[in-house]
């Protein structure tokens, strides 16, 4: 049995399906894939979600298929990916529901 205390803060498995309990009427999900400039998906990239002022909000590591996912709020965000293949940024304007974005990294 796990402790009935606060869930931790570590980033969950990025490849897992969205939990069934998730209310997409309320949640703003920003999800997508990190690709190299050759178009290949990049697993193990560090993806950072920055708010409209550039302040760090969250970070996850991409799944074996290069996927990432954030639970944010409607508004303007920047995704910044760091990887051994280089770094890259993508701006996103998110609305409630699922927002799909991809980030390309290059040296």
């Amino acid at each position: 049995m796990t402790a009935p205390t606060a869930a931790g803060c570590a980033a969950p498995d990025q490849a897992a399906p969205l939990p069934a309990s998730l209310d997409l009427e309320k949640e703003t999900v920003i999800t997508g894939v990190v690709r190299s400039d050759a178009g290949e998906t990049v697993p193990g990239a560090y993806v950072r979600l920055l708010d409209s002022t550039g302040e760090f909000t969250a970070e996850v590591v991409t799944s074996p298929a290069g996927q990432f996912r954030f639970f944010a709020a409607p508004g303007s965000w920047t995704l910044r990916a760091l990887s051994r293949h280089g770094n890259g940024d993508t701006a996103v304007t998110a609305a409630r529901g699922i927002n799909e974005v991809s980030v390309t990294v290059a040296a």
Partner: protein
Amino acid sequence: MSRDTALVSAEWAEKNIDAPGVVFVEVDEDTSAYDTGHIAGAVKLDWKTDLQDPVRRDFVNKTQFEALLSERGIANDDLVVLYGGNNNWFAAYAYWYFKLYGHREVKLLDGGRKKWELDARPLVTDKVERPRTRYVAQEPDTSIRAFRDDVVAAIGTRNLVDVRSPDEYAGRLLAPAHLPQEQAQRAGHVPTAISVPWSRAANEDGTFKSDDELRKIYADAGLDDSRETIAYCRIGERSSHTWFVLQELLGHRNVKNYDGSWTEYGSLVGVPVALGDEPGEA
């Protein structure tokens, strides 16, 4: 305390992987990262199953901590080098814990797992076995741990540093944005707490900023270093990162980490809560 006594670089770590008396310890909330590859010889600690009491909301007591370290083969005179994912949040939490139980030599690997991976340094999957020890912990040093009553008493009188993201501070989000947002507690922050997100203290590769940069960040945010400070976040691990910066890197005294943090404070009945981007009134 200073950078020299509290931190090691990835270069130092790679050179000292086999050094006698040095034990690398990976600390994560989800230890699947360790299982897919870890620094050679490193043992793992699971933030939830190893460091938290399985029943009560509290961390393990002295006896449990002694049993854990003995079982992992960590001795009292070992130099413990902690590292982990999430920009060393859980490693910093474990560092605070090792200090709380009086371990003599403990350091954090600057940049943690992220810097190590981005540098393409070697990770292995070998099973690590260390001979059992008889670890003896000290009585907990509560001078570095804040409880809820300390936080309520600190409103308007001491430095309160909220290290969550600006949206969590203001009450627009209840959890970091990689987690679903449904939570029981109220949103907002402790009145009079200043907002200094933990991330301002770190470079994007997870290493700590320079001492000069760090001093400026907290001075600009209005932290009065002549007063006691309590750092908090949501569950106490991001605030361990800030506790580490203030007490262990910058040498402030009387810095406490409030491990109950927002999941406790935001659920308390009758305490004041401030909303919005300003600290608010006592």
